[in-house]
């Protein structure tokens, strides 16, 4: 092959071709969202590369897990036992409160909250692109993952599923610039929207009137509006509130409670269809159901008694 003589089209023509292709790709992907289906296919096509890229990290993890002393293991075990004991005690309390809550909800004729199905997922890769905060997890459509599914870690909301491949999928984090979560202040129920700021430790809240009662340190939980995230999961903690009368709105910033920069295991949720607070018209509690529930309650109480 002699590079002195030109072969094929000139670089300018090739560049024009690629520029045209990429411009149309950008237009159709960003403005028209025409690649939603293709994205899933592409995601499963490149997932071998992602599995391959994560092997060194997994080997390190494996080594770190296997090369520990007996003493460390014993210590860890002891800690876990103590933690389990206290969790168990909390669980007992929770059971009672749950029952009580269900009964109160029945009295108010509000729909009951069902059990939420969960699945643990592991992070395959974290996006190295600084402009978008996304991670890839090792669950896909084979595991029943769907688009828009809420993703948590052990502390709070992490994000939602963006594209689903066959055995891997992409999760957009709450700190991404294009993402926002409807939240409320858990102290008094004031509603806000938490939008990502493109920084790993910050969420911003736009259009917050000066009159709202928000203080730094307030916990923000999902409000369940928008039907994406189930209600009541912690999202962020308010860090700064600045009331400057020169501006129309207060400046509120918060920090995600989930350890976004240290994610490893995630929880996928399958929320119930038609979350309760929005469905007053639909008679959720039929008499038969209440009876069943009551008998269950009774059974529960008798069990507790015995």
């Amino acid at each position, binding site marked *: 092959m002699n590079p002195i003589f030109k072969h094929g089209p000139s*670089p300018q023509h090739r560049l024009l071709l*690629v520029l045209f*292709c990429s411009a149309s*790709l950008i237009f159709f992907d960003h403005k028209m969202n025409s690649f939603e289906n293709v994205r899933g296919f592409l995601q499963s096509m490149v997932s071998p590369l992602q599995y391959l890229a994560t092997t060194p990290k997994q080997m390190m993890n494996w080594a770190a897990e296997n090369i520990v002393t007996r003493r460390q293991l014993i210590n860890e075990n002891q800690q876990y036992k103590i933690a389990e004991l206290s969790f168990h005690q909390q669980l007992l309390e929770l059971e009672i409160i749950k029952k009580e809550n269900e009964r109160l909800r029945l009295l108010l004729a509000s729909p009951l909250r069902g059990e939420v199905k969960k699945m643990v997922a592991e992070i395959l890769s974290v996006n190295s692109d600084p402009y*978008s905060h996304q991670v*890839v997890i090792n669950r896909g459509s084979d595991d029943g993952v769907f688009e828009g599914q809420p993703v948590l870690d052990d502390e709070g909301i992490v994000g939602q599923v963006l594209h689903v491949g066959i055995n891997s999928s992409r999760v957009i984090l709450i700190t991404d610039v294009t993402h926002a979560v409807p939240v409320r202040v858990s102290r008094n129920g004031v509603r806000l929207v938490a939008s990502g700021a493109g920084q790993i430790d910050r969420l911003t809240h736009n259009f917050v009137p000066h009159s709202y009662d928000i203080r730094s340190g307030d916990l923000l939980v999902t409000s369940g509006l928008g039907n994406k995230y189930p209600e009541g999961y912690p999202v962020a903690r308010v860090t700064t509130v600045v009331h400057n009368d020169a501006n129309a709105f207060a400046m509120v910033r918060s920090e995600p409670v989930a350890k976004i920069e240290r994610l490893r295991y995630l929880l996928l949720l399958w929320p119930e269809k038609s979350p309760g607070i929005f469905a007053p018209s639909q008679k959720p509690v039929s008499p038969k159901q209440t009876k069943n529930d009551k008998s269950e309650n009774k059974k529960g109480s008798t069990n507790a008694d015995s």
Partner: protein
Amino acid sequence: MPIRNLLIIIFTILIALIASIMPLPLSIDVFRPDWVLVVLVYWCLALPARVNIITAGFVGLLLDVLLGSILGVHTLAMALAVYIIAGNFQKIRNFSVWQQALIVGVLSALYHLIVFWMQRFLTDAVFLPSYLYPVITTIILWPWAFLLLRKVRRHFRIT
């Protein structure tokens, strides 16, 4: 043996792709060099008839899918960066390795700026100086990558 040569070129590009999505600690991650750009620039300098702008566009598209960015952003940036090499490969070939490293550094800066401009245009991204940190590591990486890839090319007699 063109098929074997092609496979070796594809293999090096795949390794670069894997290196560019490999999970790293957050503090090192901002310094991740542009592996894919370096490998593409080398092959474009060495074999401009085989690896050219269309290859670069295709690899950029793969990078888009791997990074989950808007399809076409890295395609465009990669193609423009490689276009500069493809237009001037006869000049750049005769430079010393360190001069080439500087040119690759400029290309890498251009690449990151194009990606940033596209993101700025499409979403409301804000410029942070850390977006240009990879330029430094790319300059440092180039001589080593160049020597390694030249060894590979000579060993397998890729033409």
